[in-house]
């Protein structure tokens, strides 16, 4: 959220103050986005700029920087503690004003001395000619002067009316107080005093007209001319022109006046205020701060300015108002009483202490600084930008475009959907703009509401955005905010890498080549390549690339995984939006019943971690029949499963850390699914079917050399045994089922017979696994901190043997014991050794390991009613 870049001082604040100011024209209704921006960027360049020369002077070079605030020098002068320096100059200007024709001092500061002469026939500069029609306005000021003879009431009214009309005609365009001119303002300068003094409220005199113009004239000639801040080119900001607040004014006035005027002027601001709020579509949320500032200005400056303007009037008045020269003396006389009167109304007169004056000055300087660039953008501009920025970051479809954030937050909150996306954005924006307190009136709720409506608007804009940017990529709107590449880039960032897509043919060649190599190496009959072989060619599967190539090639499998992911994501999105899900497309992508490949692509999918990780989510969308098919396929082709190969000590005697991690991942993800499926929904016959698929199509003894394989077999037999016990309690197990079970068990046992001892990995393998495994959790058990105390966890083997023995008959059990007798005694002696050889300080650990060994061993022995304890095997009582 780029609330940083621009002045967010406004949003949310103006509410209260706006209300206070005008009480009326609150625009609470949501605004139409298009209405709230003036669309400046849509205008063509003006062609009739012929007044520019007058406005800016001819001599300026193109691209020159006009200082429309006020000269830096002026600012400096203000901040300097001086004032004394200016004083004489000011006095001189007074004097010259009083003299009404003084050629000297006043003129000195202005570029066109002659203009100050009161000569009626004075030739005005081009600028003046622009304003000649304004001269009629000037009389309007008269009422404020108690000089009755100047105009009648009727005349005044008429003039006011005229002025109104003129303003309507000219708008702000008609007031170019231009630097080159040197003298600030023609008639307009007197607008404000008139307004304030007469106290009228309704006259729609543009505020901009009034305040600033008076100023330049009041400025001491000594300082660099305070630039009129009214810049014609800056259309919208007109209402908020920074007002130069020359300190000199205070000095120039009697301190008393300055002091009293400050408080006194505040109430009078009411009159400009309506102007501020009259702005039709300006969003209320952005106005207030400026008003606040304004109040500051006024409190310290407003009145002096008025007074000053009046004082200065004579020289200018004369030209504008031919024949109506006011005698300066009169003016002077009038001013003093007026000021005094006003001052006394508010406050007892007190002289300003120099310290207070100083404070005031410092404060003023600060305000000046702040105001230096204020008003460059109107609230509407700012609103527009805010909304534009918001429109970049809000989205109509948060789960699609803001997926990570949304889901992450839900996960963090434990599945509870929190505040709405839009609410969050509104809050964040408010907070970062520093206005979460709701401005002066602490209307935080209102501020938030406003911001929410802004966000709402922004969403609308965001919705429209794609069409806009498609039609008109470099449209005028975007140009308004500078070069906006984000409109496209945030959605479709520029790619650093362009990957050419025409390489497919080449790929086919290489994968074909691999296949050829694989086939020749393995001596596979080409004829059988299409019909999937169900025999156990486990050792051929050691080369994973071979397996992959037989199921379509590595790239095919990888792209398959991605397709599966996108299907799952699609289904999950449907689930979130409450739609019915259809898993048939997902089922297709799994290629489970697809016989076109020698090895099912599904098996190859499980060779990749991401393929394993997606399995639980796939299972969420499959129905039971599909799950069964999937598992049937899985068990049928178990020998090809990469994880079996890597976890078998025969094919992979030296497993790497990453392989062990894969193994653990598989165990914790896929094995879990199988177990939960078998225990929750599989029927007895279905379990038998899976076991049969395993025994029939695989080299069981090879599978039993791998930890995962052994785990899988264990799961199947123990589940079958459990169901059998359950069912037999209810006497539901039919004789057909029982005989099938016996048959399948016999098959399994035959496959394992004479090779039962190979389920125990050799010691080198176990120690290597322990050494490699960085985190001994699943593969090996850890006792104590040091790896020295890690040992290979054989419990999975004893679990297998236990479940095998449990389902077998007595003769089966006898065979088992015969075959693994050595292992049993080996384990017992190892356990006894541990306690006797361990150093005293490691006795604890040794005892634990010993107990663990016995525990595992007894898992198996208990099935046959035996128990191993303290180095001996005895009958279980």
């Amino acid at each position, binding site marked *: 959220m780029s609330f940083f870049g621009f002045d967010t001082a406004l949003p949310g604040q103006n509410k209260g103050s706006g209300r206070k100011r005008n009480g009326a024209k609150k625009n609470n209704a949501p605004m139409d986005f298009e209405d709230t921006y003036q669309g400046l960027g849509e205008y063509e360049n003006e062609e009739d700029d012929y007044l520019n020369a007058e406005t800016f002077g001819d001599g300026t070079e193109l691209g020159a920087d006009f200082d429309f605030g006020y000269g830096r020098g002026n600012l400096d002068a203000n901040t300097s503690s001086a004032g004394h320096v200016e004083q004489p100059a000011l006095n001189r200007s007074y004097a010259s004003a009083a003299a009404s024709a003084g050629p000297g001092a006043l003129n000195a500061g202005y570029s066109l001395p002659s203009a100050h002469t009161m000569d009626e026939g004075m030739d005005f500069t081009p600028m003046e000619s622009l304003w000649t029609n304004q001269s009629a306005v000037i009389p309007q000021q008269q009422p404020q002067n108690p000089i009755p003879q100047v105009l009648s009431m009727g005349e005044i009214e008429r003039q006011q009316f005229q002025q109104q009309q003129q303003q309507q005609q000219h708008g702000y365009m008609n007031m170019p107080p231009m630097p080159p001119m040197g003298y600030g303002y023609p008639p307009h300068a007197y607008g404000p005093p008139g307004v304030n003094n007469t106290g009228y409220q309704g006259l729609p005199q543009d505020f901009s007209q009034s305040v600033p113009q008076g100023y330049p004239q009041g400025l001491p000639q000594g300082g660099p001319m305070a630039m009129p801040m009214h810049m014609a080119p800056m259309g919208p900001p007109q209402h908020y022109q920074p007002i130069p607040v020359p300190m000199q004014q205070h000095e120039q006035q009697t301190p008393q006046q300055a002091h009293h005027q400050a408080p006194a002027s505040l109430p009078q601001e009411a009159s400009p205020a309506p102007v501020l709020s009259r702005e039709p579509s300006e969003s209320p949320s952005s106005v207030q701060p400026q008003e606040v500032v304004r109040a500051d200005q006024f409190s310290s400056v407003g009145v002096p300015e008025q007074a000053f303007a009046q004082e200065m009037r004579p020289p200018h008045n004369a030209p504008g108002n031919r024949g109506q020269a006011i005698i300066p003396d009169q003016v002077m006389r009038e001013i003093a009483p007026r000021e005094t009167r006003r001052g006394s109304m508010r406050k007892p007169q007190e002289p300003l202490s120099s310290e207070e004056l100083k404070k005031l000055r410092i404060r003023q300087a600060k305000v000046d600084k702040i105001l230096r660039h204020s008003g460059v953008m109107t609230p509407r501009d700012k609103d527009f930008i805010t909304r534009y920025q918001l429109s970049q970051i809000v989205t109509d479809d948060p789960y699609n475009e803001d997926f*990570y954030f949304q889901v*992450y937050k839900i996960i963090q909150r434990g599945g509870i959907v929190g505040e709405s996306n839009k609410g969050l954005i509104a809050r964040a924006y408010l907070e970062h703009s520093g206005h979460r307190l709701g401005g002066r009136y602490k209307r935080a709720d209102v501020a938030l509401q406003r911001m929410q409506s802004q966000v709402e608007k922004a969403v609308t804009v965001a919705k429209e955005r794609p069409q806009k940017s498609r039609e008109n990529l470099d449209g005028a709107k975007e140009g308004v905010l500078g070069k906006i590449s984000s409109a496209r880039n945030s959605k479709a960032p520029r790619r650093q890498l362009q990957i050419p897509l025409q390489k497919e043919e080449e790929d086919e060649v290489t994968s074909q080549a691999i296949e050829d190599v694989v086939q020749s190496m393995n001596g596979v009959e080409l004829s059988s390549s299409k019909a999937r072989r169900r025999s156990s060619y486990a050792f051929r599967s050691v080369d994973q690339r071979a397996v992959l190539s037989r199921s379509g090639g590595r790239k095919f499998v990888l792209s398959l995984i991605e397709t599966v992911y996108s299907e799952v994501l699609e289904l999950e999105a449907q689930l979130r939006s409450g739609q019915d899900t259809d898993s048939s497309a997902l089922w297709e992508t799994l290629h489970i019943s697809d016989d076109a490949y020698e090895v099912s692509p599904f098996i190859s999918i499980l060779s990749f971690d991401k393929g394993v990780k997606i399995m639980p989510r796939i299972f969420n969308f499959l129905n039971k029949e599909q799950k069964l098919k999937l598992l049937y396929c899985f068990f049928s082709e178990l020998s090809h499963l990469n994880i079996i190969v890597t976890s078998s000590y025969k094919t992979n005697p030296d497993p790497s850390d990453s392989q062990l991690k894969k193994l653990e991942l598989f165990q914790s993800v896929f094995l879990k699914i199988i177990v939960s499926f078998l225990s929750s929904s599989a029927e007895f016959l279905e379990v038998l079917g899976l076991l049969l698929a395993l025994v029939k199509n695989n080299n069981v003894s090879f599978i039993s050399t791998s930890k995962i394989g052994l785990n899988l077999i264990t799961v199947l037999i123990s589940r079958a045994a459990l169901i059998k016990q359950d069912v037999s309690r209810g006497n539901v197990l039919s004789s057909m089922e029982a005989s099938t079970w016996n048959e399948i068990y016999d098959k399994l046992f035959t496959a394992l017979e004479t090779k039962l001892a190979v389920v125990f990995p050799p010691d080198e393998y176990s120690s290597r696994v322990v050494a490699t495994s960085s985190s001994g959790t699943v593969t090996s058990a850890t006792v104590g901190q040091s790896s020295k105390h890690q040992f290979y966890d054989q419990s999975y083997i004893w679990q297998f043997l236990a479940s095998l023995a449990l389902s077998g008959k007595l003769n089966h059990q006898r065979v088992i014991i015969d075959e693994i007798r050595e292992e049993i005694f080996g384990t017992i002696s190892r356990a006894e050794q541990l306690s006797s050889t361990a150093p005293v300080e490691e006795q604890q650990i040794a005892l634990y390991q010993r107990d663990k060994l016995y525990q595992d061993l007894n898992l198996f022995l208990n099935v046959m009613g035996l128990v191993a304890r303290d180095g001996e095997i005895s009958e279980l009582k």
Partner: protein
Amino acid sequence: MLFFSFFKTLVDQEVTVELKNDIELKGTLKSVDQFLNLKLDNIECSDASKYPHLSSVRNIFIRGSTVRYVYLNKNMVDTNLLQDAARREAMSSKN
């Protein structure tokens, strides 16, 4: 929007930002925008002696284009979710 979305989840977490001028700043991420501009609070420069002018800076706004790396704590990222989000983004850009 993926990284914007991602960095939004890091708000109020402590991160270390390495800038392209080699300055490394550790601080609490306060906000991020679509340009991946960052706002850090309570910053701390990892090489304060080399950049003494930063020792008196408390919070900072960093233009996104000047960032080289953002170091995060491992547990601040849900990598699986991030993968999903990346896939979704890829999916939506294809359409």
